[in-house]
């Protein structure tokens, strides 16, 4: 089965660790990768798709040495393989302009302001991954236990993605 990955990008290792710990419960179903720069993130993203898997969610910081998070997300969105990937900014420093740019040009799905609450981050990650499963028209059964079961059940009801057999 194709795996759905979560990719966390932040130049501060301790922030990455915090994010990873917050969403650790998801890791059994959605393997988590971390990158300390957008260059590293890009390599990992390519690697995920080249292995036949999918990138479901990117949790990305904005201000980092080298390329910033918003530009990375915009560029990611242009590639077909990452078109459905859910893009979330986790930042305290993205100004209005950068954020607007991310929304308009990178189809940003969510903005999380630092500092965040662990339960909020988990809820947002689950919601975004639920949307990813639905929009990618995947079989929702393997993900129902971990994600929003009600939304995925509704998706089965209306979309016939699972049928009698």
């Amino acid at each position: 089965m194709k795996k759905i990955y979560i990719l966390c990008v932040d130049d501060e290792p301790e922030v990455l660790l915090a994010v990873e710990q917050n969403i650790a419960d998801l890791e059994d179903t959605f393997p988590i990768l971390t990158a300390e720069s957008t260059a590293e993130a890009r390599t990992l993203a390519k690697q995920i798709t080249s292995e036949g898997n999918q990138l479901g969610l990117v949790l990305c910081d904005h201000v980092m040495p080298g390329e910033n998070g918003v530009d990375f997300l915009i560029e990611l969105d242009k590639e077909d393989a990452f078109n459905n990937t859910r893009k979330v900014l986790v930042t305290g420093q993205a100004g209005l302009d950068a954020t607007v740019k991310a929304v308009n040009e990178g189809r940003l799905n969510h903005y999380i302001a630092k500092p965040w609450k662990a339960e909020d981050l988990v809820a947002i990650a689950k919601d975004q991954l639920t949307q990813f499963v639905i929009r990618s028209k995947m079989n929702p059964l393997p993900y129902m236990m971990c994600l929003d079961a009600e939304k995925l059940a509704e998706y089965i009801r209306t979309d016939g993605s699972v049928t009698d057999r």
Partner: protein
Amino acid sequence: MNFINKKTISVALGIAGLLLPQFIGFEGLEPAGQLALGIFLMAGIFWICEPIPIFATSLLIILLQVFLLSEKGLFAGSLLESGYTPQSYKDFYGTMASPIIILFLGGFSLAASAVKFGLDRTLTRFLLKPFGSKPQFVCLGLMVSTAVLSAFMSNTATTAMMITVVLPIIAQLKEGDPFKKVVALSIPIGANIGGIATPIGTPPNAIALAALRGQGIDIAFSTWMMLAVPLVVIMLILAWRILLFLFPPATDEFKIQLDAKINTSPAAIISYIVFGLTVILWVTEKLHGISSSVIAFLPIAALPALSVLDKKDIRGFSWEVLWLVAGGISLGLSLQHTGLASWIIDQVNWSSLGSLGLLIVFGLVAYGVANLISNTVSATILVPLAVGLGVSGAAGADFNMGISIVTIGVVVSLSMILPISTPPNAIAMSTSVIESKDMAKAGIVVGVFGFLITLGFSLLYWPLFIK
């Protein structure tokens, strides 16, 4: 890439199965039978190991039949020389437009319009209301509502809808209350059992009905319901008591939100009318004499004509389920026509089992297999053998072929031990309040009782309808 994995091994096995009869040349089987056996073996292996989706296997069957066994096929000449008259390729293609498939298509149209306008949800609220707020009756209400809906819609879609109804109930209950398990299990059990109630309830019914029709036994929509509904009612009550016994609730009262809002847009009203009218015409088939497959075209044509369903809705039908069934029916044709079914039957001395023993063996195998693989496939593999047994006369004069077919069709729906047994079971696991062992416990008890009751029906009640 590692090329030796479960998938490639299954594919290799399937192809080996397809070619095996050509190399071994089984004794007593005509060339057409050898070809059919190859197709049967390949289909069986593919259906069980699932290297490709089960409906894709059904499509392959039709392809192979058209190329290998039909009058326009590669071997038409040599088959004729061997004394076998190949079937028309139209017979194989025609399975997709057979009356039972059209009946299902009618059901799909109704279900699609019901989902589109939320009729399934409204009906649930309406059906649940009389059951009040006492836990044990809420449980019965959930099972009855699920069963009623799944009798006309797919078991899976019904379960998905009901899960959205019960998740808030589960969230409301205290941590560790066994009633959570009762609620979560009542849905798949209700859906699996409810599918038995009407011909369109679940695909295995189609396999059984098509086989009966092939043997000249025409069962009206209402006749099937008379056969099945009493069984469904008994099973529901029994399963209800079993669930409450296994997981006694700790709460004695709780709130259940039932805001029954009816969609009253013109399109919705039309869909309700078409739904009601079709169902009424189906269940009164005996009174007016118009076949249910004829009536089925009413919703198929009327709903798009009245702009209730659009092209997107029609694309959204579960066409792969229809192909799955069509391929199954098509395989059955060749099993009978080439004499393969009788040949398989001849390999065993059945008369020593007696007619009751035969029924039990078929029932047990169907039940066991359906717990592990698709219910439709289980019925598809076993029903032609029951037909072969009846036609060849190997089972003795008191073997009732018709009843054995219905029995197979029913017991596959009673298989619900594992999360993989049926899609409703898999969906119910997503509530995270049941473990596999809870499901197994309930599934085994319901299955054992269900099997015995079905056996009772096939000995005492069904002979009143199927001679």
